[in-house]
């Protein structure tokens, strides 16, 4: 397989210690219908690190990633990416973040190439046709480039969504279960992407249940349990204990 090319913005190069933390949250909480999915997380991830979010279903991994991706607003506390607040500087954060959720966000009636062309237009990718060809090659979908996504398997969709990330110049890549739905070759592809992002100085946070294959690729690990940080290990990531002693409640005016 040829070398995967990662395009980086000027922000992402340089020694990590000269950059602001890629991710910093302070007492971050997010409630759904009054119950917290993330219940007071204070986390700091250094730039250029690859960090896994671990924990059982419902631990808050996806919610944390979605807040950092600006898909959800924090209910309490704050979160920042490259020193930019996700609520206040949303547009600037979106320029820096690439997010792969459980859904791929692809259009069924468009071909793989057309889907990437649309993403390239949205991301203002320079020299788009060459970059699209390269991304299709990187995720090994050249042969199906002109087929409609409607006929793709779940694994092929995931590959294409990963290819979409390669069109941008994100300094923070957020991946929710990147190994899900992929065959053995696809999993190797994700490994190679993680290595390429790491080598390019791009920060990666991924939620995963597949931990054994990640050992060589990870700098740090964060284990979440019931919306709180249960354990932090490895390099590049630190956590503060929650400042809130109990689960946050909305402020209710009383008479």
């Amino acid at each position, binding site marked *: 397989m040829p070398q995967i090319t990662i395009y980086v913005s000027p922000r992402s190069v340089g020694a990590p210690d000269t950059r602001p933390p890629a991710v910093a949250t302070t007492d971050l909480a997010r409630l759904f219908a009054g119950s917290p999915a993330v219940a007071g997380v204070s986390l700091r991830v250094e730039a250029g690190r690859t960090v896994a979010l671990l924990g059982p279903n419902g631990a808050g991994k996806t919610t944390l990633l979605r807040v950092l*991706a*600006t*898909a*959800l*607003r924090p209910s309490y506390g704050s979160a920042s990416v490259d020193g930019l607040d996700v609520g206040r500087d*949303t*547009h*600037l954060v*979106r*320029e820096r*973040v690439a*997010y792969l*959720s459980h*859904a*791929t*966000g*692809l*259009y*069924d*009636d*468009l071909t793989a190439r*057309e889907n990437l062309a*649309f*993403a390239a*237009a*949205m*991301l*203002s990718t320079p020299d788009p046709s060459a970059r699209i060809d390269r991304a299709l090659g990187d995720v090994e979908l050249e042969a199906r480039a002109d087929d*409609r996504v409607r006929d793709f398997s779940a694994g092929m*969709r995931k590959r294409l969504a990963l290819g979409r990330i390669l069109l941008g110049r994100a300094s923070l890549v957020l991946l929710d279960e990147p190994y899900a739905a992929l065959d053995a070759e696809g999993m190797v592809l994700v490994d190679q992407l993680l290595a390429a992002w790491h080598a390019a100085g791009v920060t990666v946070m991924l939620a995963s249940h597949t931990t054994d294959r990640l050992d060589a690729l990870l700098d740090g690990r964060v284990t979440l349990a019931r919306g709180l940080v249960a354990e932090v290990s490895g390099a590049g990531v630190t956590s503060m204990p929650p400042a809130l002693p109990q689960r946050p409640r909305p402020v209710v005016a009383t008479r």
Partner: protein
Amino acid sequence: MTELRAEARIALAIAHKDAIAELRGRHAMVSTLFFAAVVLLLFGFALGPDAARLAAAAPGLLWLAIVFAGILAVNRLHLLETDDDAFEQLALYPVARRAIYAGKALGGFAVMLLLGAVVLGAVGILFAVDIGSAWGPLLATVVLGAIGIAAVGTFYAGLTVRLRAREVMLPLLMLPVLAPLLLGAVKATAAALAGDPFGELGAWLQLLVAFDVIMVVAGAATYGYLLED
């Protein structure tokens, strides 16, 4: 200026993407046009075979058919965004929110223009109305009506796309807002078909222009909030 050009490029990319998807799913467009034709036929049956009565009712029936079929059309343009949560992906791109609105509304405008032209032709044939003699003012009315329906429809389709009851909610929200447009378009069409004996055509077209401007500006200013959590 360069910023505006970048936003126009984004809007065109969104409209182009919608056009491809819409043309690939040709059956959807055809069924919308067929729906409009069926609505016209049923109105015809309801009013009876009196040709003079049908011709007199033609402007109202024309615009009711365009509005009903238009609701289906703008709804479908947003349903494209529900493919594997594409709407969220669209919202997360670092592009101006009003450019996203402009792109979706532009796609809606193109569909409404096609729909308006086809329904106008169908009314001419079914109700024996001479549209050839007044094609200029009729075209202006259809274009202004298409802009208004696309502007309102894009906003409300964005509002309801994530709701389970969207098929009910969309017409419920859209139809009252479209009332001024319906009034202006019907009156302008009637005046155009009659040869504008009272010189009122210009005033009705002005009402449509004002409606369009207000709705486009309001939609562009507020659509972004629909994309956020």
